[in-house]
């Protein structure tokens, strides 16, 4: 018994460490798309993991745990936005940082990828908080509208309205960029 306890603790620590490694990037990006800046996304990602890992009995099944963690991350981001009242996206007139290249990527691909990211960030900044949340959960996370409604604590019809507005505003923004 006295020998089994450290082993159990070690296994639990390994499991937690693996859980963090497997999900850290995904959760950070998910929160970043909602709150729009790295500093807040970092704090909220840490908060979401700490909340999740305090219930470490929930992380035995990796697939369910990943889904559950996404929910915690979304709720943490929503709570943050509610507390703060509004979102301060990075200024769209600000000059973008020089793009960093991915391995095996041509300069043209790099510029295109960088432009696409910039458009996304600027496009998301055009939306209201609810529209952005609905769009990220539906189109980026791929959740069904009913699940998005549950997370945003509103009706499916309201979620549909947010999604439609967000897609239309995004299109208008893209049209302006291309004009």
């Amino acid at each position, binding site marked *: 018994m006295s020998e089994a306890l450290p082993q159990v603790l070690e296994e639990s620590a390994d499991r937690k460490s693996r859980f963090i490694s497997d999900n850290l990037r995904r959760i*950070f990006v998910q929160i970043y798309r909602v709150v729009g800046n790295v500093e807040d996304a970092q704090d909220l990602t840490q908060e979401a993991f700490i909340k999740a*890992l305090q219930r470490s009995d929930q992380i035995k099944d990796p697939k369910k745990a990943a889904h559950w963690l996404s929910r915690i991350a979304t709720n943490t981001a929503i709570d943050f936005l509610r507390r703060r009242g509004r979102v301060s996206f990075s200024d769209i007139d600000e000059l973008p940082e020089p793009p960093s290249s991915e391995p095996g990527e041509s300069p043209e691909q790099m510029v295109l990828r960088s432009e696409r990211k910039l458009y996304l960030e600027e496009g998301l900044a055009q939306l209201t908080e609810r529209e952005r949340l609905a769009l990220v959960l539906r189109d980026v996370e791929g959740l069904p509208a009913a699940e998005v409604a549950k997370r945003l604590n509103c009706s499916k019809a309201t979620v549909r309205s947010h999604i*439609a507005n967000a897609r239309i505003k995004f*299109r208008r923004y893209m049209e302006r960029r291309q004009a």
Partner: protein
Amino acid sequence: MKHPSEVDLALYSGGDLPFWRRWKVAWHARGCPECRREAERFRDETNSIAGAASELPDDLNWDRLAAEMRANIRVGLQAAECVAPAEVPARAMNWRVAVALASLALVVVSGFWLHAPRPPDMAETGAGVVLSATAEGLELLDEDRALTLMHASSEPVMLSVNVDGAMAEHYVDDETGMVTINNVYVQ
């Protein structure tokens, strides 16, 4: 020809319309290249959003940030453990519940036993005298001596006993036809 609204096309492109509206838009789009193209454009934009959204910001040193976050999460968990209220072991909790339930059960059983009605055909008195009902009447027994108050009835007799040790019998007297009550008290 009336085209679907832009809202409907935006929702249709992502499969977010309710069944009936989806069917109507799909039916229209089948014969309208303009609306079909619009829906496809919405779909392409959605795909490009999803693709771009999974990438990290350009100016971010992910390895450094990830290491920092891992360290902060570890510290946060340790801090949370320090301030968490001590957990009451589940087993100790169960014992307490079990003891409480056993005590309650004991009280209920004792109460029932103390207040349970005694058999109506016999009542014990304090000084070794036993009062009992027989087929002939009410009988007092004191060691080897007996005294019987006989009833004169061929009909069934109704007996009652009270908590003081008294016994009563109610019957219809065969000779007089009157309802007769005999009470015997033992002191």
